[in-house]
């Protein structure tokens, strides 16, 4: 799950900083770190449409997302009107949610971390443990492919012993320019559980970035969550007060 988190992060957060290490990336560890830094940046601001698709049903939510570094992020729903101003704050591995109707900030208890985030195919853990991919897994290069004329590294990530992870194995595809193409999540029995893929790579903010991210369950073809970036800007920094529960409660912007 932790890996998932990471992924989710980039999706939502789109950070700026970037392209560290655009140089050679034979070392898979460095490659993953570089890719992570590329999509997270130092800080970012984005507007994203999240589509939750089910066989008989679909729902679109528009979310504003701010991220800073690897640890902090803030999400706020701006549409549909019924759900406007519902927010989620993530700091380290803790999460808080805010609902304007009851006007309360609630810290998510550990028991809720495996639940779905806003009804999507992402779990709270995907968000809260987004840096786990870097911290808790060891990566090895298992092959290369090509994508739009560029080299793609296929990386297998196994959890480090004793690491508090949810997934038994991850398979990452990272393009040589550090763009994340996909991440597959396997359980302890190495069965595929879900897969996240990135599409529509184009200039967003100041860099090439996949506009659409899709999280798809392995056993249900018709069930997926799609994140589509409408707006993305990488920044050098964001004010610290943005990532506080009081800001979560009182949106200043």
């Amino acid at each position, binding site marked *: 799950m932790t890996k998932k988190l990471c992924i989710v992060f980039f999706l939502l957060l789109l950070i700026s900083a970037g392209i560290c290490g655009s140089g050679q990336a034979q070392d898979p560890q460095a490659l993953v770190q570089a890719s992570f830094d590329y999509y997270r940046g130092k800080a970012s601001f984005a507007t994203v449409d999240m589509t939750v698709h089910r066989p008989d049903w679909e729902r679109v939510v528009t979310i504003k997302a701010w991220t800073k570094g690897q640890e902090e992020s803030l999400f706020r729903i701006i549409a549909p009107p019924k759900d406007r101003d519902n927010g989620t704050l993530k700091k380290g591995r803790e999460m808080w949610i805010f*609902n304007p109707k009851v006007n309360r900030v609630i810290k998510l208890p550990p028991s809720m971390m495996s639940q779905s985030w806003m009804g999507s195919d992402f779990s709270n853990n995907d968000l809260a443990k987004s840096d786990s991919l870097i911290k808790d897994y060891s990566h090895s290069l298992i092959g290369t492919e090509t994508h739009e004329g560029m080299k793609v590294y296929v990386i297998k990530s196994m959890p480090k012993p004793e690491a508090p992870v949810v997934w038994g194995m991850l398979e990452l595809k990272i393009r040589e320019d550090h763009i994340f193409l996909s991440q597959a999540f396997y359980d302890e029995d190495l069965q595929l559980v879900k897969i996240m893929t990135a599409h529509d790579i184009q200039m967003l903010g100041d860099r090439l970035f996949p506009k659409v991210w899709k999280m798809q369950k392995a056993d249900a073809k018709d069930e997926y969550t799609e994140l589509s970036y409408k707006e993305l800007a990488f920044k050098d920094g964001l004010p610290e007060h943005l990532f506080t529960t009081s800001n979560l409660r009182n949106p200043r912007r």
Partner: protein
Amino acid sequence: MNVDVKMAWRNIWRNPRRSILTMTAIAFACLLLVFMLSFQFGSYDTMINSAVKIHTGHLQVQAEGYQDKRTMRLVVPDPGAIGSILEQTPGIDAYTYRANAFSLVSSEERTYGIVVIGIDPAREANVSTLKKVIRQGSYLSAEDTNQALLGELLAKNLQVGLGDELVMIGQGRDGSVAATVVEVKGTYNSGQDEFDRSSIHIPLKHFQDVYAMRGGVHEVVALGKSLGAIPAIRKAVAGSIENEDPKHVLVVLDWIDLMPGLIEGIKLDLISGLILYCILILVVAFSILNTFLMAVFERTKEFGVMMAIGTTPRRLTKLLLLESIAMTVIGIVVGIIAGCLITWYFQVHGIAISGMSEVVRQFGIPERMYPKLSFLSVTIGPTLVLFITSLTALYPALRVRRLRPVEALASV
């Protein structure tokens, strides 16, 4: 033949103490078996009926897949239609509607992820024991909106009391964020810890508003008049539901589908009971074998005399078998009669239970249990005893054929 029977009868009473002891052992085994089996069978009915009354009911109508997935969108869209089918089905005692949502429930102090259940207060009272197990505060009334009942354990975990506010945040049927503030109106103790720790009840109307249910519910819960009638009712209800749209199929589940753990608990209890009975029967069998065998050894000289004056070994065997069968039958008859009397007494007055096993207790067994005499519970045990004792009696009866008259006469 007549002479043999007479001889056997007299032989039995030649050593009354030994014979009475043997017969008492048999009678006691039968008595115990009759009582315990009746008790077990009776307790299962009580267990099931009290377990279904805590929450699940005998039958539920749900959208297909809801039982496993518990997804908000798998609803019974028109509960009224199911209600009128249940009205018309004979054997249904009461029914109610419920909707469930896994939500974040938060007090000032703590937050837990638990199931919020929307109930129809008036109907619920006829189906489940919820109204009767309220320990503090009061049950929901028809006018209540944002009032809630919660389990005592949950109230303790959340550190709330009557009148305190709880915030609930979950997801509505349409995927939107559902949030409301409710006031604690009462707490309950169902006896089933898991239930008391993980559920909160609010009025169905309010639930439907908050969770955007558009009139839908997740479960239509029904209680039958008797446990035995459930399969027939299930069939009748399933037959009446018109599933026109193959994408939204409604299914009827019975208590076994709804509470697989309960039937497992019963099986476990039955098996541990059976092991106990086998040991009991074995002990009885050995003590009977002992007395039968001693009877032959003691009477070796007597048999020698009989053989010397021309009794065939076959006739001796027959005699011995007659003796043991007579004792067994007397023992069994006495055992059944005494067993039935004792069981019947408790069937009328009930037995106070304090130390039931945990497996059974979590399903909320009432304080008094009533054994239930039935043809099966009265006959199974004694039949087994008859069978085992007859087998046991064969050994000494056949052994007597190996006696040599001269040697037998010489023994003391």
